[in-house]
């Protein structure tokens, strides 16, 4: 029997050593920090994992030893000594764990204050040729089942955030992909329009819930340009699994260029097809979607679950759509027409939603001609990103 037990312990050990080995390369890996906050979490968690591992080995090895050593071999009929306890031992194994945990808690408190503190970093930007200093801040709004990122370049201080369903107009609004400059601490204000969600980019920081009626502070910072994957981690209903997001970090000068493009309103369509597409947009899509220069955000009545839908002004600058689950582009850089058309044809088929309750994109009953026109119009909205970005942000 002990042999089995031994084999089993080897197996378990294998599992625990594989934790580190197997997780490299995975895009949501929590043990592969790419920013200062996630790094301080990681450098706290790693020693705690090690302490836990050592204690586990002691207890497990101890149990195995007890099995081996004190197993009744039926060599005699004698009864073992009836030991009722040992006061000193009890005190010892109360105090030792207490001291270990006291040590851990000191480092916990230090890290806790680190990850909750904020820098007063200011970034120089120019907007419409005017120099401004921006304290990097992004308003993060969750809803079923996608994320919206709102940039207020004059700062969030004077902005009324009390009603996430009716927010003041922002300079830049994106969804599913948050674009940030590298080397800057970005303060996040996280809230929700409907139920509780949780915003999580494992490589950059832990989670923070998006709670309706509350605005929770959090922060992220990326060392290097790159794409960092995330996933909603608070159960938020039907398509919780299909609520994903990415942080795209770029060098400050590229970020400035991104800002310059994003604050522009949409261009007027030029081709016949895209003009017809705009008419379709204006007759149907404006109920929920916004294109800057065409229609404005409308207020959401208390009786409506949500009629917020992604801002489409620069749709083509984003490489994923429908809550970060579909690629906007093929690997060769051409539009992923098949998926986009399927989405317009019957969205609830592509991603579970309660469309009849106005949660999620409904089936609008478009005919094929309208779909073609609409795709032609959507293609005029925003600039296509580089092929490298398309490759880095690809989702499966």
């Amino acid at each position, binding site marked *: 029997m002990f042999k089995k037990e031994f084999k089993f312990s080897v197996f378990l050990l294998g599992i625990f050593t594989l934790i580190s080995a*197997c997780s490299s390369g*995975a895009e949501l890996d*929590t043990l592969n920090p790419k920013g200062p906050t996630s790094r301080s*979490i990681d450098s706290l968690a790693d020693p705690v994992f090690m302490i836990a591992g050592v*204690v586990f080995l002691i207890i497990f090895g*101890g149990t195995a030893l007890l099995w081996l050593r004190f197993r009744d071999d039926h060599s005699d009929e004698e*009864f073992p000594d009836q030991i009722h306890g040992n006061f000193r*031992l009890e005190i010892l194994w109360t105090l030792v764990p207490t001291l270990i945990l006291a040590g851990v808690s000191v480092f916990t408190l230090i890290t806790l204050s680190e990850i909750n503190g904020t820098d007063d970093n200011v970034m120089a930007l120019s907007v419409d040729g005017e120099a401004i200093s921006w304290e990097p801040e992004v308003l993060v709004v969750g809803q079923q089942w996608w994320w919206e990122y709102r940039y207020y370049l004059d700062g969030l201080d004077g902005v009324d955030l009390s009603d996430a369903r009716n927010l003041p107009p922002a300079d830049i609004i994106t969804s599913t992909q948050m674009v940030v400059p590298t080397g800057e601490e970005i303060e996040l204000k*996280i809230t929700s329009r409907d139920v509780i969600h949780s915003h999580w980019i494992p490589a950059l920081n*832990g989670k923070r819930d998006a709670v309706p009626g509350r605005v929770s502070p959090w922060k992220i910072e990326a060392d290097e340009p790159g794409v960092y994957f995330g996933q909603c981690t608070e159960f938020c209903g039907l398509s919780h699994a299909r609520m994903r997001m990415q942080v795209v970090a770029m060098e400050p000068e590229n970020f400035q260029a991104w800002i310059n493009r994003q604050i522009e309103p949409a261009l007027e369509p030029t081709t016949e097809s895209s003009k017809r597409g705009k008419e379709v947009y204006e007759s149907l899509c404006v109920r929920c979607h916004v294109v800057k220069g065409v229609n404005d955000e409308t207020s959401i009545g208390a009786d409506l679950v949500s009629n917020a839908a992604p801002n489409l002004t620069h749709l083509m600058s984003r490489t994923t759509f429908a809550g970060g689950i579909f690629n906007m582009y093929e690997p060769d850089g051409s539009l992923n027409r098949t998926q986009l058309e399927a989405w317009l044809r019957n969205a609830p088929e592509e991603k579970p939603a309660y469309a009849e309750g106005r949660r999620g994109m409904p089936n609008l009953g478009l005919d094929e001609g309208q779909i073609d026109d609409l795709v032609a119009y959507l293609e005029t909205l925003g600039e296509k990103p580089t092929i490298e970005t398309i490759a880095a942000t690809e989702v499966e």
Partner: protein
Amino acid sequence: MTQTVEPQVESTSEDQTKHQPLGVYTRPKGGNGWRDWVTTVDHKKIGVLYGAAALFFFLIGGIEALLIRLQLATPNGTVLGADMYNQMFTMHGVTMVFLVIMPLAAAFANYLLPLQIGARDVAFPRLNALSFWVFLAGGLFLNTAWLFGDAPDGGWFGYAPNTGIVFSPGNGMDFYAIGLQITGIASLVSAMNLIVTVLNMRAPGMTLFKMPVFTWMILVVQFLLVFAVPVITVALFLLLFDRNFGSNFFNPVMGADPLLWQHLFWIFGHPEVYILILPSFGIISEVIPTFSRKPIFGYPFMVFSGIAIGFMGWGVWAHHMFVSGIGPISVAAFSLSTMFIAVPTGVKILNWMATMWGGKLLFNTPMLFATGVVSMFTVGGLSGVTHAVAPADTQQTDTYYIVAHFHYVIFGGALLGIFAGFYFWWPKVFGHMLGEKLGKLNFWLMLIGFNLTFGPMHILGLQGMSRRIHTYSPGFGFELWNMVETIGSFIIGLGVLFFLINIYVSAKKAKGQPPIGPDPWDARSLEWITPNPTPIHNFDEVPNIEELDDFWHRKYGKDENGKIVRIASAEEVCQDGSATDTHLPSPSYWPLVLALGFPFIGYGLIYSLWLCVPGGIMILMSIYAWAFEPPDDPEGNHGDHHEDTTGEVAEEVSVD
């Protein structure tokens, strides 16, 4: 003159009324067959009923778990849709927590607690029956949601506002709110009953610190229930009113703070974790000493660490909310309190190991399961410390790392302990042993399957796989371990299957054979002084208790050299169950009828308020009948001979 006569007349008619009040409220006779089971107030039968019902729900919850694992075996799984998956994981959690682990603990508590303290029954036998029937009514009510095609889909934690009428417009969450409300009544009634039993009905000489550790842990759990259940009751009522009567306790659009639900839920929910685990700690604190042939090491420390866990369990709830945005000060406070609750838990583990140290260990199936708890629960305890570290928890929470953690606690701790209890006390309850060969097979399959299922979840969680997602995409490195887990879960299923086969085979083998005889394990605590299976009246005579492990001390003493020697055989020490003069409480119909009223009210709240009328009438009439039924039935089979016709008997009987 008349005044002197009248009292006599009154006394006679009162006496008659007590025995046959209008013929309406006669008590059932008991006897054999199914009638006996539905009217029983015997704590042992009720314990068996709890166990059987809980095992039934265990199979349902297990099938739900296997379906979840099938869906997640491969990326983009299509076994269940998103909607069905959400219902499945919600019902799996609710079932396993409220309808499996809690009632299995109640099964052991009901059966063993009176026996361990030397009592004839619990303090309130009819209330005891009520607890069971109300629990069963609530559990069945909850599961009928499947039949109406609308099971709860908001998670067992039911976070507002996702559970509100706007976001969960089906009836599922109503079944959740009402079903748990009903089972909550059962828990409360049972908790009161067992507390009174322990405090008032111990055998002479059995001071609190001579009680077995199992009895102690059950006592602590009952106090936790008394204080925790009202909190969830309040939360569920608020949810019910929000959903059905237009209130706005959790509606942020009307200014409510959804964190109110989280606080209420976890103030209940965290003590609930200890409600689930402490009975198992109690069970293995009986099993390990018996099979190590040593007394429990550090008895007072075992008791006080259990009490300490019970107390500290109230100060850690917000560790479920480290990322909810409750502010860094609260996070720091709850982080520290959570870390230090590991200390009394660690004390318990080390004391179990010290009990084994220097013993002569016999690895029968109960001991295998018990040592399984010691090692597997340790994994859960240690991963618990890693997310008590709040900054680390911001990465771990709501990932599979947490799923791994609490399955090591609830499955590796609570369930394996309960299986230890099954194998250990099976001869006590049914008079025959469960097969050792099948038992060992059951243990190893469950242990290996368990580790294959939940061990890799640590890895998946740290790799970033979220909880409660109905599917995942390829490319995140989740494929391998999910497949391993699904295979592991079916190995667990196989283990459970062997358990069921074991029950069947050993019952078949024992048929026609005489019962096992006294004290099959050379055990230590008082329940083994009664014959196996326990006779209806428990003890022939109430034993006088002189020591902790009094039963063992009746069998063993020291010779002149201080060596431990057998001084009496089990046959000499154990009672033979031949007593016939023990007065026993009579069976009653009313606990069952009362309990059946609750589902009517439940369906009424969901489908048509008119249905509440018959439900309400059933409940009120049952309470009335309960109060007015005679204390016992003169013809009833309850061991009381009723030769005494002066009416004194009626005065003497308890008011159960």
